[in-house]
């Protein structure tokens, strides 16, 4: 295609030869830029149909080797952007996205960890995330307003529309959990699950710029160790400051309400039991309250809402909801680490979840008060701290080096590996030995994060 290359698509003879030869090349070698670029030109000029080209790509991508071709996936993305020209300002319709997700799933099963198939999938989920956030935040604000006024505002009929925008992302999240259970070594799949969690967590967990232009709505987890450590330090300082104030207030509360039971309960919670009871309380909440449920204040509370629970805690996009999301993922990941020993990917995923929970941990003070109170153990944060002078700093947190040490000790004891048991250590082999090595690495990683080494 020499100097006259600008016009080759207007010449019927040349055009036909290019259509045929480029199709051959694309099937065998979608990374050949010349071939796929020619086809983009033909689509642009109206000589090829974008829809048919996408269907052709569906077939091309059934070749495992083609699944890892960046050229093939970019061609697909380019075609979608061509078909939906407003994608930069208006996210793709959820139905369209769901159709595309299937091909990514098929590719992931044909050629595990194919990087560009997963990159495409992240891009698709970003569109679902925009819809989800908008719908859930609107509901959350309605629930906040209802909490204030005692009645739901807004159009109840909106509920139907919302499901259209909420369900796809939530289904994708569930799908990724099942994928992870079937593919315990699939680091790419787990990373995509992490992306889904990031989308579901909104501004509580990420620095997300929601601007008018869609191209700026990618979710970038901007965590750095430095930032995390300074946030935890700020919380330590804030907690120390509120302790005296809270102690005063709780004494007054007890005088006013005569809550001797509450004081006794508080004393019981001291010491090492606190961290574990906090976690079991999160678990308890999770057992009672489904994560993805409809927020409504009908008199029957008929949507699976537990009796007497504040509806706000069910509201997606609220801080307690996000805490439950991460708490439940922490438990699920720990269970998997337990069930499938020796899988590096699972331990990596645990690092991610730990990181996220730590981040949320350091958010709790910022959200105390008003409608955003964190309710754990059915006490407000101030009430917990009241009067407890001796509790160890570690028990302040959802997760910490102490909580992770406790988890690892339990894990290793469960497979008959004691710490310091030399005879046992010598007998270890295979997955058990690897499990111990991975557990040690995990604790070292947590320690570096926790103590800022």
């Amino acid at each position, binding site marked *: 295609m020499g100097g006259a290359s600008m016009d080759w698509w207007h010449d019927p003879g040349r055009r036909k030869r290019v259509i045929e030869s480029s199709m051959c090349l694309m099937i065998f070698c979608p990374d050949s830029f*010349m071939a796929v670029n020619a086809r983009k030109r033909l689509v642009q000029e109206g000589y090829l149909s974008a829809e048919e080209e996408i269907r052709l790509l569906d077939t091309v991508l059934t070749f495992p080797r083609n699944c890892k071709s960046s050229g093939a996936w970019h061609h697909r993305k380019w075609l979608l952007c061509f078909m939906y020209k407003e994608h930069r300002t208006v996210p793709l319709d959820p139905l369209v996205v769901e159709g595309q997700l299937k091909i990514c799933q098929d590719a992931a099963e044909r050629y595990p960890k194919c990087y560009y198939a997963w990159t495409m999938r992240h891009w698709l989920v970003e569109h679902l995330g925009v819809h989800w956030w908008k719908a859930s935040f609107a509901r959350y604000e309605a629930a906040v307003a209802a909490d204030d006024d005692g009645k739901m505002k807004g159009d109840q009929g909106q509920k139907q529309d919302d499901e259209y925008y909420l369900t796809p992302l939530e289904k994708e999240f569930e799908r990724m959990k099942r994928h992870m259970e079937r593919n315990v070594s699939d*680091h*790419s799949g787990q*990373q995509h699950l992490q992306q889904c969690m990031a989308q579901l967590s909104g501004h509580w967990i990420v620095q997300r710029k929601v601007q008018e232009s869609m191209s700026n709505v990618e979710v970038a987890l901007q965590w750095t160790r430095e930032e995390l450590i300074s946030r935890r330090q700020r919380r330590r300082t804030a907690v120390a400051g509120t302790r005296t104030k809270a102690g005063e207030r709780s004494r007054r509360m007890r005088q006013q309400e005569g809550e001797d039971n509450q004081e006794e309960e508080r004393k019981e919670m001291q010491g090492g039991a606190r961290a574990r009871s906090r976690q079991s309380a999160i678990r308890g909440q999770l057992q009672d309250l489904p994560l993805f449920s409809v927020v409504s204040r009908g008199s029957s509370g008929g949507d699976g809402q537990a009796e007497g629970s504040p509806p706000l805690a069910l509201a997606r996009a609220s801080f307690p909801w996000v805490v439950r999301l991460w708490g439940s993922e922490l438990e699920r990941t720990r269970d998997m680490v337990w069930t499938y020993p020796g899988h590096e990917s699972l331990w990596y995923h645990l690092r991610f979840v730990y990181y996220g929970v730590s981040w949320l941990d350091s958010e709790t003070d910022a959200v105390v008060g008003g409608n955003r109170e964190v309710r754990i153990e059915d006490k407000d944060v101030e009430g917990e701290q009241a009067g407890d002078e001796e509790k160890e700093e570690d028990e302040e947190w959802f997760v910490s080096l102490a909580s992770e040490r406790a988890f690892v000790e339990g894990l290793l004891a469960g497979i008959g590996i004691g710490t310091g048991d030399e005879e046992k250590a010598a007998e270890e082999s295979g997955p058990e030995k690897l499990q111990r090595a991975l557990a040690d*690495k995990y604790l070292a990683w947590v320690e570096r994060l926790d103590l800022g080494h």
Partner: protein
Amino acid sequence: MNDETTVVDASAPELLLDQHVKYIQELDTKKNDLEYWLTEHLRVNGLYWGATALHILGHSDALDQEQIVEYLVKCQHDNGGFGGHIDHDPHILSTLSAVQILITYDRLDAIQVDKVVDYIASLQNEDGSFSGDSWGETDTRFIFCAINCLSLLKRLDDKRLDLQKTIDYVVRCRNFDGGFGSSPGGESHAAQVYVCVGTLTILGAMHHVDADQLGWWLSERQLKNGGLNGRPEKLEDVCYSWWVLSSLSMLKRTHWIDAPKLIRFILEAQDTETGGIADRPGNMPDVFHTVFGIAGLSLLGYPGLVAVDPVYCMPRHVIQRIGLTEKH
């Protein structure tokens, strides 16, 4: 040249230097192989891999340099970009490779440098990233190609570029584990780590990298057999000897992996019959794995090899000759 102080495991195989030279020289003769034709779009990249490998092996004259220069000139388009082969569409990947070869041969005079800069500048996007070509695929690899190439041409100060935005974009690709992906939210991958760390090194923005966290992740790429992988629970592959090692070198933490074990792994991946290096022992060799295996050995200090620059993957003396400050 690397000196003799690196500890090489006595039982490791020898480096089959002469066989590798012969292997590279014969690459262009394999016209009966379908693979030869299916990789036509990579011809210019392949020349860069072959030429660089020969330079590190100390046999820079094993290929006809004039012939290569003439060929490359034919690959340059009017818009300044180079295609992967004659009449192939221009792309930033082949543009970088062409420029790297020409600088190594000290033959920049043969092409239109201003037009190359025009082409690269035209590929920068509003968010600071660079596309691979005019059809818009973005990937941190292309950012590195752009910055690397402009740096080699000493044209990073071009007014059309917004390098702060580029840095900001690369930082958005940084993940919680310290690694980098191909785009924001992308999975950490050793090759993406190399291109992002390389970009930040050239642009003097390494303070955005958590060196300990990333060094930790990179050192965990080493497997029991000494080889390195690119992501958790993936197989070892010789090319990661370069991506991981050069990243560690830029982070000043090459001692975080076991060098003798890695050297042994690379040497075991050599093909004793045909020369060349494969992705792992027992597989068929190709020029891509050959250059990255040899470059990896050089970075590890294997004796008798020409020193390689970890950022540019070119002979160190060439980088010094063109006066680029050593930031690594």
